[in-house]
Every structure is written in structure tokens, then in C-alpha cells.
């Protein structure tokens, strides 16, 4: 598989804080990647490094074959949509869309126009007068219509309602199918996007915690529920990601079970339930003492 991005031993230190800590990974050309992790894990810093907006403290970055720093040939093929993009004072929406093609080699005006209709965006309104959701829509439109071979969306939909988010997912998938490109989607709404992702990178405290296909990660964990003693017996000597109990019932999330082990558990009267990508990441990156923490994401 060819790679669009290759990073080796990349470190970024700010005064006293190591935001990115000796990470190495590649991004696969033409795949949609999820860059997931908690607040402050280093996602945005990583994307800033990959788009030449920050200088690395040490390590190597290759984007589309060369260093992205001050490299116009690379950057016109890279689009980075940030959560809090600043626009010039007095810019109207139409000015944003008019200037975007100056920066992106593959910009599609037709696609941008149709997205403006989809998101019902007022072209003549000043950007600073837009609602939070409309501002996010501007970013989403620029990111999609740029058709950049490497596109980053950093938490692109703050304030976008569920309908608009699904419009974004639908347009992204449809356009990606027609014009394959490498996409990196960083978000906290993991359940919403997990089916869109081909590969997943999870970053935790500046380090890469998981780097795999979404399908492989989906199969890595399982929750075992049953009588306390039986569950504990089964969980012994296995890697336990989370543990909860209510009365005599215990629930334990275990990493990696073979088919035989699954049948053993069922035969022992235990119930197995799947762990979604979001639950897996919560368990991997959350505090380990979550003994009685019944997180709301299970209900939602």
C-alpha cells in the first residue's frame, strides 16, 4: 500500500509539555482515517505538524513525498479544516468561497455551490455574524470542495445539528467514492463516524495507542456478563479493560477472545456482548478505576 504520510520518531515539546512524544506511523493513501483521542491527547498538534503549521522538536515528517514545512507544492494539495478557523475581519461567506481556490489545486466550484445549498448557508452574511453551526458548515464545505489529496478535518462540526452532520457524512462518502483521497477525521463523536472509517489511530498523552483497521479493532474486545464468581473465574489471567458490578452480577471487558474461548464463556452461562469502537476507546484511554462508572454512552 502506498503511503501519503510517513512520520518517524516525531516529537513536539512546548515549554515543559510534550504534546507529541516520539510517534511513528503512516497514513495509507486513499483511506479515510479516524484520529481519535481525548482532549489534550495531542491530535491537533499532530495535525498542525503534518500541515507545516508547527515545527517539530525532533523527528521526520514526509507528506506527499516531502517535508510540508514552507512547501507550497505540498500544501496546495493539503487541506486542514480546524475547529476554530479565523477569517479576515469583514469577510463574507462568499469571500471565503471565492478565495479558497487560490489555496487548493483541486477546488471544485460546482461542488462548493451545491454544498452551500445543502447546508443552507447565507452567502452574503459576514462570517463573524454566523452562528456556531453555520461557521462549522463553512469549514466543512471548504474541506469537501477542496478535494485535496490529503484532507484533515479537526472536530469539524461543533454546533452542527444531527441533520447537518449526516449531510456531511453522506456528501463525504459520495464524493470520496468519486474522487478517492486520503482523509483524516478527528472527532469525539466516535460512534457516529466509526462506520465511515477504514483505519483508526488512537492517540493518548502524545503517544499512538492503537493503529489498525476499524474492522480489526472492532473485533478486539468483548464484554462478559454474568454471575460475579463465574465472570471473575473467566477473567482470571486475561487482560481486563474495565470492570463493573451490580449486586451479584459482574461485567468485565476483556481484550481479544478466540472463538473457542467465546464458546467456553457461553457454555459457562456467561453472556457476551460486543464492544463498540467508542466503548473500546473509552476503556483504553479512560481512568482504569472505573469500577462503578456507568458511562452514558452505553445508553445513547
Amino acid at each position: 500500500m502506498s503511503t501519503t504520510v510517513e512520520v518517524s520518531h516525531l516529537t513536539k515539546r512546548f515549554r515543559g509539555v510534550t504534546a507529541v512524544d516520539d510517534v511513528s506511523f503512516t497514513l495509507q493513501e486513499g483511506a479515510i482515517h479516524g484520529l481519535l483521542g481525548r482532549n489534550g491527547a495531542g491530535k491537533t498538534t499532530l495535525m498542525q505538524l503534518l500541515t507545516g503549521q508547527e515545527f517539530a522538536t525532533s523527528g521526520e515528517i514526509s507528506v506527499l513525498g516531502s517535508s510540508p514545512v514552507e512547501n507550497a507544492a505540498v500544501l496546495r494539495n493539503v487541506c486542514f479544516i480546524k475547529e476554530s478557523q479565523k477569517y479576515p475581519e469583514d469577510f463574507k461567506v462568499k469571500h471565503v468561497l471565492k478565495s479558497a481556490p487560490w489555496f487548493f489545486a483541486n477546488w471544485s466550484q460546482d461542488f462548493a455551490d451545491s454544498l452551500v445549498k445543502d447546508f443552507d448557508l447565507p452567502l452574503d452574511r459576514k462570517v463573524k455574524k454566523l452562528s456556531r453551526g453555520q461557521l462549522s458548515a463553512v469549514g466543512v464545505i471548504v474541506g469537501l470542495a477542496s478535494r485535496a489529496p490529503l484532507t484533515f478535518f479537526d472536530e469539524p462540526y461543533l454546533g452542527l445539528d444531527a441533520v447537518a452532520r449526516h449531510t456531511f457524512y453522506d456528501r463525504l462518502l459520495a464524493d470520496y467514492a468519486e474522487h478517492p483521497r486520503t482523509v483524516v477525521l478527528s472527532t469525539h463523536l466516535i460512534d457516529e463516524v466509526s462506520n465511515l472509517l477504514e483505519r483508526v489511530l488512537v492517540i493518548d498523552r502524545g503517544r499512538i495507542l492503537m493503529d489498525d483497521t476499524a474492522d480489526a479493532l472492532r473485533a478486539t474486545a468483548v464484554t462478559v456478563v454474568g454471575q460475579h464468581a463465574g465472570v471473575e473465574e473467566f477473567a482470571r489471567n486475561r487482560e481486563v479493560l474495565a470492570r463493573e458490578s451490580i449486586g451479584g452480577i459482574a461485567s468485565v471487558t476483556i481484550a481479544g477472545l478466540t472463538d473457542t474461548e467465546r464458546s467456553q464463556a457461553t457454555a459457562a452461562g456467561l453472556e457476551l456482548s460486543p464492544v463498540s469502537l467508542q466503548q473500546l476507546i473509552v476503556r483504553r484511554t479512560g481512568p482504569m478505576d472505573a469500577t462503578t462508572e456507568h458511562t452514558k454512552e452505553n445508553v445513547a
Partner: protein
Amino acid sequence: MDDGRPIFLQVAEQIENEVIEGSMPEGAQVPSINALAAFHRINPATALKGVTMLVDTGVLYKQRGIGMFVAAGARERLMAARRDNFRAEYIRPLLNEAAKLGINPVQLSDLIGKELQQ
């Protein structure tokens, strides 16, 4: 799509179901990868993986440049495979649950008989 199970398996199963139920008869063209991806809101690579699995197992066949079609005899083969799994997937769990609730085999077969009469 439910969580936890690989999505490509679910895509494949859904196409299998349509073949078994007859809404996708033998010889019929299967939706394109991009159409499947858009419909299920999933990554096209995942949809491709599901369809490729069905090509490998002989449920679908590929006609280069035209698309994917349901293979002759696919329905019968799928039904035979599902029948093989019927015991493990339906009968065993049914008996386990019945045992848990204290329903004995005679009562269970009574229940099945009554349900069939309705």
C-alpha cells in the same frame, strides 16, 4: 448495522438474506460498491470487502466492467449452509433459555405446537 461485529460481514449477510428471500433473484445485478457504501453509510472499502467475500464463496460473480450478479444455485447453497447453522444458532439458545426458566421439553414442544396453530 450493529456494533461489535465486523461491518463487512453484516453487509455480506444482508445480501445473502436478500438472495434467500428472493428479492435478489439469481442472475440479478447487485448494487455497486459505492451505492452500498452510501446506503449503509459505511466506508466503500468495507462494502468492497463484504462483496469480495461473497464472490469468493461463489454467491456472487463479477462481470468485468459491468458489475456483480447473483450466481446460479446461490440461493440453494446459502439455504443449505443456514440449515446447518440452525441448530447452533436457534435451537441451542432456545433450549438454554427454556432450561433457565424451568420449561421442560414436553412443555416446550407444546408451546411450539400452539404457536404453529395460531
